[in-house]
């Protein structure tokens, strides 16, 4: 292996660590927040401990010493917390959240290979600062001791506490590194050095029996094994977690303190090539008696003979009445479990790009299977076959799409921290309720809905909720609630951000809208029409611009972002009861429900959720340079799509044309087309590089006939028409005003 290969392997292993550390930190943050609602929950306490412990363990394997040193102290404190020596007070909880943030910075620093010394130094100072704060929470706070060496504080723990924490005990650890481990960036010595930091080695033996002499060795293959007896106060779980990262690169066997000789015999039997030397060592250190050893070696021999006759070693052990059946069962089951875990049971990660590639291919398959079906029209037998294929392909597509589905819960959970911190800085008492976190939607949607949701949640806290005093005066409970919920509803996902605040002040909204010229002075609007005004560009109700939600980014941006995801946003509000904002999103962006039309010879797809209605083209008129039609007594601007896109219109002007009424950002307009072809569900293909600069298009697809159809970006089309003056904003009035109440 060249050094470049090795670097690549190490980088890959490190990258896995960085991803896992991120997940662990997120888990830590969530657990801390959950603990605020369920103080003292043992499960959560353990989860909290585990998250930081896992980071420490893996960091140790990569020799990230700054990270190990810091996480070790956090871990020590969490251990006290877990065993009930100290209580999780709100101030400790806040400090631990800061520690979690700090660990994220330390991880980030180790990721950035060439960070400058200033940054390193700043972080060191921050670490020291946090450690001092942490040490104040330790039982018998000894101040400066927090930074003492790791072995010492472990020993302290065992010495000080009589309950809850394991005393130092002697474990037997057997490690056999697999041949490929060096190539995968795993260094056996790093594991040994890390183990040594957890306790004291009573004995260590290197097993290099498999190592050939220099002339025939492969220097990059790993031949190493270790037998270690160590004294430590760590729990079995803690020790197991130390090996979590090298699972799959090393056979790990852990024998508990005080284990029966059977466990050691099993160890010997598990490692035939090392059996005799292993036996000697175990006898020498007193783990096994001579008699036991001889019995096991004889049995081992017997087992080897018998197993040729098809008998498993476990059976032999039971038949010889040496081991109770239950013990063998347990041992065998454990082996099976370990094997399943390392052989692909459970969950494994796939890069999003690979999934996208798969879905793209399946999309093409769908298209060509439709083409085949069309071509088979004259051949009944072939037609039937292609229909079967079509069904299967459809199923594959649905399966492939479901692989990209993720629960929105993780995104929601991130808001716990946001709400906690924001409520604190606003001096409001807010409780976040989360419902339907298990609701699944496409990964890319989940990623892109985070920002709009963040804005809505911030808005709810800042503008929606009253202060505790105001609430009390209004006869409401002092503590306010913000609710995040998600659910599936007829092929789409509905996400709601609700609060039990004061509701929207319609009088103020109307006044503001009038002063900004968004509404005519004499216009009378219904309540829902007034509510809809807050989504208008340039509308902001905050009287004082706060640093929380008044960043000049208004609700219009939220709406635009939701519409970019082909979603819709709606608002409901009642004075003194609260406000609820509902976002309706498609399940995936990979498929579009479209309305197929034809302009000239070109097939176009209009996203169905933006289509309001279709009407026969009426007589058009010119008004201030804008083409309009008369729709229910009101002028509505119309655009000739073919002309806007610069397509050659081959249609005779005399042909009966149609108008598709579409909606974008609250504006309505008619699109003049030649032919309506009906609804069409299709897989979106990204546009080729050549076409990417053609803005009013968002993608393309291939029809069953093999013809290419272009997917229209209605928002972009209308925005362009507006700037070019083909539609004036005054003309394309908000839809609410068009629809009779």
């Amino acid at each position, binding site marked *: 292996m060249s050094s470049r290969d090795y670097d690549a392997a190490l980088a890959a292993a490190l990258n896995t660590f960085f991803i896992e550390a991120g997940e662990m930190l997120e888990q830590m943050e969530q657990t801390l927040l959950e603990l605020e609602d369920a103080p003292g929950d043992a499960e959560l306490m353990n989860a909290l401990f585990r998250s930081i412990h896992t980071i420490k363990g893996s960091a140790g394997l990569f020799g990230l010493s700054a990270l190990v040193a810091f996480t070790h102290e956090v871990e020590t404190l969490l251990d006290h917390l877990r065993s009930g020596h100290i209580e999780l007070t709100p101030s400790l909880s806040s400090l631990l959240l800061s520690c979690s943030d700090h660990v994220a910075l330390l991880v980030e620093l180790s990721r950035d290979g060439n960070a400058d010394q200033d940054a390193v130094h700043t972080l060191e100072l921050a670490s020291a600062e946090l450690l001092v704060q942490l040490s104040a929470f330790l039982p018998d706070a000894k101040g400066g001791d927090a930074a003492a060496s790791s072995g010492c504080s472990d020993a302290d723990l065992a010495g000080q506490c009589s309950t809850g924490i394991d005393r130092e005990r002697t474990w037997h650890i057997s490690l056999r590194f697999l041949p490929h481990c060096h190539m995968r960036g795993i260094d056996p010595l790093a594991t*040994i*050095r890390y183990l040594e930091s957890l306790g004291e080695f009573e004995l*260590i033996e290197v097993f*290099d029996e498999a190592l050939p002499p*220099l002339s025939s060795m492969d*220097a990059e293959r790993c031949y*190493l094994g270790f037998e270690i007896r160590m004294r430590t106060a760590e729990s079995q779980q803690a020790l197991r977690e130390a090996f979590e990262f090298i699972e799959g690169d090393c056979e790990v066997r852990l024998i508990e303190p005080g284990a029966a000789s059977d466990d050691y015999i099993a160890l010997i039997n598990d490692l035939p090539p090392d059996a005799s030397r292993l036996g000697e060592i175990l006898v020498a250190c007193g783990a096994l008696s001579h008699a036991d050893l001889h019995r096991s070696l004889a049995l081992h021999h017997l087992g080897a003979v018998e197993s040729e006759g098809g008998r498993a070693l476990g059976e032999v052990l039971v038949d010889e009445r040496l081991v109770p059946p239950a013990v063998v069962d347990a041992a065998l089951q454990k082996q099976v479990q370990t094997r399943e875990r390392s052989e692909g049971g459970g969950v494994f990660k796939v890069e999003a790009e690979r999934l996208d590639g798969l879905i793209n291919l399946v999309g093409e398959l769908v298209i060509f299977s439709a083409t085949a079906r069309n071509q088979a029209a004259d051949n009944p037998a072939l037609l039937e076959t292609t229909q079967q294929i079509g069904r299967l392909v459809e199923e594959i597509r649905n399966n492939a799409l479901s692989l990209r589905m993720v629960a929105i819960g993780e995104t929601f959970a991130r808001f716990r921290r946001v709400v906690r911190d924001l409520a604190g800085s606003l001096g409001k008492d807010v409780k976040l309720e989360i419902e339907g976190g298990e609701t699944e939607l496409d990964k890319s949607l989940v990623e892109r809905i985070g920002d709009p949701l963040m804005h809505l949640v911030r808005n709810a806290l800042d503008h929606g909720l009253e202060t505790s005093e105001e609430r009390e005066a209004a006869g409401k409970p002092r503590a306010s609630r913000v609710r995040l919920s998600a659910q599936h509803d007829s092929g789409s996902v509905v996400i709601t951000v609700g609060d039990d605040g004061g509701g929207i002040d319609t009088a103020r909204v109307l006044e503001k809208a009038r002063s900004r010229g968004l509404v005519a002075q004499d216009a009378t609007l219904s309540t829902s029409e007034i509510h809809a005004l807050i989504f208008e560009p340039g509308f902001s109700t905050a009287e004082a611009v706060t640093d929380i939600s008044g960043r000049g980014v208004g609700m219009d941006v939220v709406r635009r972002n939701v519409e970019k995801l082909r979603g819709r946003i709606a608002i409901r509000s009642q004075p003194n009861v609260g406000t609820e904002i509902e976002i309706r999103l498609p399940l995936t962006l990979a498929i579009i429900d479209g309305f197929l039309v034809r302009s000239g010879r070109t097939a176009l797809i209009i996203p169905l959720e933006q289509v309001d209605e279709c009407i026969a083209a009426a007589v058009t008129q010119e008004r201030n340079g804008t083409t309009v039609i008369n729709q229910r007594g009101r002028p509505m601007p119309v655009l000739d799509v073919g002309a806007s896109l610069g397509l050659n219109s081959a249609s005779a002007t005399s042909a009966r044309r149609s108008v598709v009424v579409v909606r974008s950002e609250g504006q309505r307009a008619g699109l003049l087309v030649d032919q309506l072809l009906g609804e069409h569900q299709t897989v979106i293909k990204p546009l080729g590089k050549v076409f990417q600069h053609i803005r009013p298009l968002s993608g393309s697809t291939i029809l069953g006939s093999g013809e290419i159809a272009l997917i229209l970006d209605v928002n972009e089309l209308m925005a362009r028409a507006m700037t070019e003056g083909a539609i004036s904003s005054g003309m394309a009035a908000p839809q609410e005003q068009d629809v009779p109440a």
Partner: protein
Amino acid sequence: MLKLPERLTIESVGQLRDTLLVAIEQAAGALSLDAGEVHEIDGAGLQLLLSTASEATEREVCLEIHPSAQLADTLRLLGLSGRFTLCPEPAA
């Protein structure tokens, strides 16, 4: 005396193995390795040293190593100091 690189790790072991093999083959009864500048050693480096020692024994070559403090520490941690003929650490 054959000088070992500063980093006795997976990146260097492939080439180093060939060098060591040639050195042992040409050694007239004795070979000494200068490991005074080794400040990093991993599993691959360790097993290369172990393998060199057994090759030397097989060829009846007397192998001695002049270790750096880091190498001596690592061997002590692993209980391997007795497997090599270590010469006193050079003055730091």
